């Protein structure tokens, strides 16, 4: 009898523990949602003044004048998008190459050290990349590659204008290059991990049919792992959009919009980092928070777009391509 009561107690105890555990996990999960809603709400409240007084004009004007309290966010928005685009244009092919080499062609002895090296690159704090950009890359770029690019690519009609500007090493292009170095380890390590998940039997069948390594990667591995690959690219894009210090160091921090990539520009994150401290005027502060909100919406759109792409891809699953 007494034994029975004991086990009953124990069962009750377990039920209680389960309940507590269940509720606490639920609480933590909800906390994420509450935080997100709180951030969005406070961004909206902070940017209310700009959104009501300047309105949509904020996103299409490029004047940023703290003396006269005129604010337009187009220049940093433009800089953010352009630098992130450059980062992906350089970063994605390089990351793809790294991942393919590591998974398909790398001698086993090199696989571990190279893979670890890529992961270590991802762990370097962004300020280190910024300092490297400022001290080493920008001066070197100004003296060697930049004049070369201006004299060759810059002379091509129409698109040549992109590769023009003052060759002092700082500007939108440099920021994009630094960002690409920063996103490569992220994208490459995700790509490598997902490439490794491809069942060997699929690859070996393709090889058995006489496919080359390229054909195996392009027609077997990539279709099998596209969700992960897109996820990795989006992770890199997210980092590129929000990166602050490394960009601030090299972008030149000038509120201008120019097709010339060697001219100084600005990004949303670096404007915020530069001006938050000394923004004492409410209009200035509100304009900065509106930029923050814009970055938030931009990141959200990137996430939504990647989800949508994945959904579209999975619909086509199984059909002949």
């Amino acid at each position, binding site marked *: 009898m007494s034994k029975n009561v004991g086990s009953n107690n124990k069962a009750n105890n377990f039920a209680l523990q389960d309940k507590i555990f269940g509720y606490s996990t639920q609480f933590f999960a909800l906390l994420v949602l509450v935080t997100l809603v709180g951030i969005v709400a406070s961004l909206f409240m902070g940017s209310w003044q700009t959104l009501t007084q300047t309105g949509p004009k904020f996103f299409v004007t490029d004047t940023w004048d703290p*003396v006269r309290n005129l604010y337009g966010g187009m220049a940093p928005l433009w800089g953010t998008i352009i630098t992130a685009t450059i980062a992906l244009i350089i970063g994605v092919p390089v990351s793809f190459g790294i991942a393919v080499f590591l998974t398909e062609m790398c001698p086993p002895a090199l696989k571990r050290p190279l893979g670890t090296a890529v992961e270590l690159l991802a762990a370097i704090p962004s300020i280190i990349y910024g300092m490297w950009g400022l*001290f080493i890359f920008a001066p070197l770029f100004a003296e060697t590659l930049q004049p070369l690019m201006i004299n060759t690519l810059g002379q091509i009609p129409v698109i040549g204008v992109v590769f023009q500007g003052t060759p*002092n090493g700082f500007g939108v292009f440099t920021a994009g290059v630094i960002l690409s170095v920063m996103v490569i380890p992220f994208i490459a390590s995700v790509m490598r991990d997902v490439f490794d998940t491809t069942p060997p039997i699929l690859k070996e069948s393709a090889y058995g049919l006489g496919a080359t390594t390229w054909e195996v990667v392009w027609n077997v591995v990539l279709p099998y792992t596209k969700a992960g690959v897109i996820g990795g690219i989006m992770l890199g894009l997210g980092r590129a959009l929000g990166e602050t210090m490394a960009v601030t160091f090299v972008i030149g921090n000038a*509120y201008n919009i120019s097709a010339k990539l060697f001219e100084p520009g600005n990004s949303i994150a670096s404007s915020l980092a530069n001006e938050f401290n*000394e923004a004492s005027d409410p209009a200035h502060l509100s304009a900065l928070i509106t930029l923050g909100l814009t970055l938030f919406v931009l990141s959200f759109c990137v996430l939504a777009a990647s989800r949508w792409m994945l959904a579209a891809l999975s619909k086509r699953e199984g059909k002949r391509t």
Partner: protein
Amino acid sequence: MRFSHQILGLAAAMAVSASATLTYAQTTITGAGATFPFPIYAKWADEYKKATGTAMNYQSIGSGGGIKQIQAKTVDFGASDLPLTADVLAKDGLVQFPAIIGGVVPVTNMESVKPGELKLTGPVLADIFLGKIKTWNDKAITDLNPGLKLDGPITVVRRSDGSGTTFLFVDYLAKVSPEWKSKVGVGAAVSWPEGVGGKGNEGVAQYVQRIKGSIGYVEYAYAKKNKLDHIAMKNKDGQFVQPEEASFIAASAGADWKNTPGMAVVLTNQPGAKSWPMTGASFILMHAKPAKPESSREVLKFFEWALKNGQKSAAELEYVPLPPATVSLIQGEWKKITDASGKAVF
């Protein structure tokens, strides 16, 4: 019984820690604001703690932040490189006094020019920063520097963040160039017509060191520390002067501290044959009727000590201490800080 013992013990522990916080609060003063004087305030704080045991905790969050914090009464004193006007001081119930003087120095990076060799006037400097003068061999520059070999494009380097250093620099440009005044104006951050922006004094120093043919402006200590090439400037009296302690002192000597309400003197473009045209004081802000008079007393004790004993460390860090005549004026200003009964706290 055991339970009540525990409660008792807990209460005792809380009482002890509460009294500990109380004594801690009595001997720590807090301030926040300008980054420009941060090195010297930090050094003074260190020396003051060794001398008296009272700790001073200063956060260099920027002048704008310092003004906001003292208005919100979260700190015992705020610090700003931009003096507040008498109206604002009266509205917020604040008392303002200068604590240290420093200079802003244009710096260049040209192989053919030695430090201090290049001579510029205010209007020419303004035209360079307006983007109107784009090359070093522009006639306006070569006319001032007949013996120098000048060539190549000019890259303008300025601050990307809001700063008291920028305020002093553009305040001077606005005083000497009507076009600067109407087109750009004066502020801690402005809409720059030209150039690349570096974050902080160190950011500008790095850019200038790395871009050939560049010109920027930094606080004097940074120019010295980084061995940047400073230039000579023509002052209001038409004399070319070098940035150095003597020319900063000369600029502050002519200032009319006494008759300017709130001691809100901006020391740019001061008269005097030896005056450096971009000199500036950094200011301290305190409440005239503080909620905690005893903390304000501690702050004033600290600054009395610093103005008297801090000269040596100020000079070591390339700042200029305030002259004795100004210090006695400041001490007169302190009498405005009173407790609830209207008695001066210090």
